[in-house]
């Protein structure tokens, strides 16, 4: 009986402790991106080898966005230029800032009649929680979780450990690849480099 009597007390104490430990983080939603980032340290700059070249037709794909809708690359054929931004993983440095940066540069994409598709190998719930902290994103975020990393593999940017490279592909309205940047995973690609490539596209 004595043991049974103590359980609620112990549970209560543990709950209070848990609350005390996590309250500061929970109450500072704005800081979530700072406090919840897992730092994997310095990684091998690239860990794959894409065979896709500029001038090749871009492989089509069908992925699910965060609202559950299917998005295909081919749906933009003849209508929009497309930028695909593969980021390695949710809740990691660089990735957690790269898309927020693109989020305030919408005019650069619009001026060049381009859409942006953000792709990660994370599953939808993870991507949903992660991107909530970025503000309202104007571009679709697509999950390449299952079959795991299939689209990243198709583009030759799936790393040995199952995450993708930090890679940018620019695809014109005809579905032809015009720019490939498989970037050092530890470094943010420069926005002006992408803007310059977009400005070269036929409008």
């Amino acid at each position, binding site marked *: 009986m004595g043991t049974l009597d103590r359980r609620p007390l112990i549970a209560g104490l543990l709950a209070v402790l848990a609350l005390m430990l996590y309250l500061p983080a929970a109450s500072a939603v704005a800081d979530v991106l700072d406090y919840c980032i897992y730092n994997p340290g310095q990684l091998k700059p690239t860990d794959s080898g894409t065979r896709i070249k500029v001038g090749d037709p871009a492989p089509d794909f069908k992925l699910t966005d965060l609202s559950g809708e299917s998005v295909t690359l081919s749906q933009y054929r003849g209508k929009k230029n497309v930028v695909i931004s593969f980021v390695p993983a949710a809740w990691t440095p660089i990735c957690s*800032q*790269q898309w927020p940066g693109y989020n305030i540069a919408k005019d650069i994409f619009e001026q060049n009649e381009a859409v942006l598709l953000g792709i990660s190998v994370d599953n939808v719930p993870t991507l949903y929680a992660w991107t909530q902290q970025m503000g309202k994103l104007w571009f679709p975020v697509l999950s390449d979780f299952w079959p795991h990393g299939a689209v990243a593999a198709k583009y030759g940017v799936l790393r040995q450990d199952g995450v993708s490279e930090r890679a940018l592909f620019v695809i014109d309205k005809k579905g032809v690849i015009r720019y490939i940047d498989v970037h050092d995973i530890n470094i943010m690609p420069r926005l002006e480099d992408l803007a310059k490539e977009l400005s070269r596209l036929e409008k």
Partner: protein
Amino acid sequence: MKKIPCLFAAAAALLVITSMPVLAEDPLRVDVEKLGQIKFAAPENPTERKYLGLAGSGEFKLTDVQGKYIIIEVFSMYCPICQREAPKVNKVHGLIAKNSAHSETVKLVGIGTGNTPFEVDVFRRKYSVPFPLFPDDNFLIQRVFSQQVKTPTFIIVKNLGKKGLELVDLRVGPLDSAETFSKNLPLAP
């Protein structure tokens, strides 16, 4: 019942143990001597040059700024918290300008850590930032801190001119409000 105090003691001990990493964490420090040595390109915009009291183009240091106090926001164009804070920081600039005790003596500048001029310009245009922003694509500002600095971070310094800068305050993270921040600026008249 005697066991209840023991449980509280155990819980207290657990709390102390789990808090230790936080207590042991080094506070962020800033080397204002190094900060005063960083050279920035003077703004091309003549209004911004006039605001800072800079005679011409070329490079300048914060100690060249004509202002008794300088508030430096370390931000990044890529940082979503900085993006959310941008309207608030703009408001701080407006409140300082309206305050006759501060308008001539307190200057506000932003340093985009890791940002190129192009990226800083995207941020400036997006939020119509009315105060000077400077790119820092070589992460020079990171070198004045004792550890990697989170954005936004606000450094408030007293500008002693040739004698350098003197740290007044260092604040990490979002501001409570523009009004509270402006009202409680720890500046001597």
